[in-house]
C-alpha cells in the first residue's frame, strides 16, 4: 500500500483536479475513470512527497492543567501586550502570535476578561501584520467582547481563530509561519506551567510528558526552517537533548469500547520518570528560550 504522510501533495493535487474536481455530487465513486490514467511513475512521485505531521498539544490544555493544579493566577507570567510593538520581523511576529495565544488561554481560564480582550486585540493586529486577514472572521473582536465572562465561549473563539489561521497558512504554503506560531505557543505554555506551580505535583509529570511533542516541534521547524530560525532550532534541540533523559515505559492494555456512546477507553499505561536535577535543567533551558523570544 502506498503510504503518504500528511503534507502538501502537489502531484496528488493535480491528479485530483484533472480527475474532475474530485467528488461527484452524491459522494459516490466517480464513474469518470477515463479522465486520468495514473501510471506507476506518477504514484512513485507521490511517494516522495511529504513527511510526518505532529499534533502539538494545545496551550489551552496546558492552561487548564495549571488551573486544575490549584495554582493561583499570576499576572507577572504572561508576556505584556505592550511588548507587541517590539516584534518586527515575520519570524518574531509569528512566535509572538503563539506566545500571546497561550497567554490568551491563561487569561480566559483565570477569568481575566479585560486582559483577555487586550490580548485578543494584539493577536488580531499580529495576524493582520502576518497577512492572515483572510483567516480572521470579521467581527471576531466584537464577538469576543460580547462573550467576556463566558470562559467556554472565549476558549472556543480563540481555538477557532488559531485553527483557521493554521489552515490558511498551510493552504498558502506558509508552513514555517504555522510552525513558529505552534512553537511559540508551546514554549509559553510550558513556561507558565513550570512557573505557576514551581514544578510541583501533576505539572511536573505533564512537563515530562512533553518529550514527544518537543520532538515534533523540532521536526516541523527543521523541515520548514530557514537561517532565520537556526538559533531557535539549536536551542530547542538543546532542550530536546535534556528531554531525552526522561525515562519512559509503556504497557499495552486492551481498549474497551462503548459503541453506543461512540467512546473508546484507552487503558494502556505509560510512565515517565524525571530526576530533580534533570527537571531543573529543563526549566532553566525552557526559560532561556522563552526569554530570548519575548525580549
Amino acid at each position, binding site marked *: *500500500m*502506498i*503510504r*503518504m*504522510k*500528511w*503534507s*502538501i*501533495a*502537489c502531484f*496528488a*493535487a*493535480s*491528479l*485530483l*483536479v484533472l*480527475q474532475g474536481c*474530485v*467528488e461527484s455530487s452524491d*459522494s*459516490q*465513486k466517480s464513474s469518470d475513470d477515463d479522465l486520468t490514467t*495514473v501510471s506507476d511513475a506518477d504514484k512513485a512521485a507521490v511517494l516522495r512527497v511529504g513527511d*510526518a*505531521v*505532529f*499534533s*502539538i*498539544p*494545545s*496551550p*489551552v*490544555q496546558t492552561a*487548564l492543567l495549571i488551573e486544575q493544579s490549584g495554582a493561583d493566577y499570576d499576572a507577572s507570567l504572561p508576556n505584556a501586550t505592550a511588548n507587541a510593538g517590539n516584534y518586527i520581523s515575520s519570524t518574531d511576529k509569528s512566535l509572538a502570535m503563539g506566545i500571546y495565544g497561550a497567554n490568551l488561554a491563561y487569561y480566559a481560564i483565570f477569568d481575566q476578561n479585560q486582559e483577555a480582550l487586550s490580548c485578543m486585540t494584539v493577536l488580531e493586529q499580529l495576524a493582520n501584520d502576518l497577512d492572515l486577514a483572510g483567516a480572521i472572521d470579521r467581527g471576531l473582536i466584537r464577538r469576543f467582547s460580547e462573550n467576556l465572562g463566558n470562559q*467556554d465561549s472565549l*476558549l*472556543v473563539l480563540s*481555538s*477557532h481563530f488559531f*485553527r483557521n489561521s*493554521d*489552515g490558511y497558512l*498551510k*493552504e498558502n504554503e506558509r508552513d514555517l509561519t504555522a510552525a513558529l506560531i505552534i512553537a511559540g505557543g508551546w514554549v509559553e505554555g510550558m513556561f507558565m506551567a513550570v512557573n505557576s506551580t514551581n514544578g510541583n505535583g501533576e505539572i511536573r509529570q505533564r512537563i515530562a*510528558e512533553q518529550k*514527544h*511533542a518537543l520532538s515534533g516541534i523540532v521536526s516541523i521547524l527543521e523541515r520548514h526552517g530557514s537561517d532565520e530560525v537556526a538559533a531557535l532550532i539549536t536551542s530547542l534541540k538543546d532542550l530536546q537533548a535534556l528531554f531525552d533523559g526522561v525515562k519512559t515505559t*509503556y504497557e*499495552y*492494555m486492551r*481498549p474497551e469500547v462503548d459503541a453506543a456512546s*461512540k*467512546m*473508546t*477507553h*484507552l487503558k*494502556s*499505561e*505509560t*510512565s515517565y520518570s524525571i530526576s530533580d536535577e534533570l527537571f531543573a535543567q529543563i526549566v532553566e533551558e525552557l526559560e532561556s528560550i522563552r526569554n530570548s523570544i519575548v525580549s
Partner: protein
Amino acid sequence: MRNLILTVLLSFILGAAFGQCDTIASVCSKHIGDGFISDGQLYRALLYEDQVAEFNATFFGGSTYRLVGCSGFESGNLIYSVFDEKRNLLFTNSDYDNAPYWDFKVESTMQVIIEAHLDQNKLDSGCAVMLINFEK
C-alpha cells in the same frame, strides 16, 4: 514563458484542490460538538486511491479527545485508525460504519499514530481533513 505558464497553472490547481479542504473542514467541524475545544490545528491531506495519511499525537492521561475525520461533503467517506506506539490497533472507525467522529477517554498519557485513507467504495480521491479536539 513556458515555465511561467506551468507555475501559474500549478498554483491554480493547488489552490482549487486545497480550496475544497476549507469547505470540508467547515463541514467536519460540525461534529466537534459542545464541550470540546479544538487543538487549534487543521490536519489535512490530498489523498488519491489507496494513499494513507499519517500523523503522530500525544493523548494526555485524564483527558477525553474527540477525533473527527471527513472527506467529501458527506459523512463516512474517510476511514481512520488509531495505533499505539507499538503499532497495536486501538480503534478503527471502519468497525462502526466509518463513523465521522469518535471519543477517546485516555487513562494514561500515550503516543498515538493516526492513519487515514479514503473509503474507495465511496471516493477515489479527495481532501481528507482530521480535527483533534479535547474535552474541557
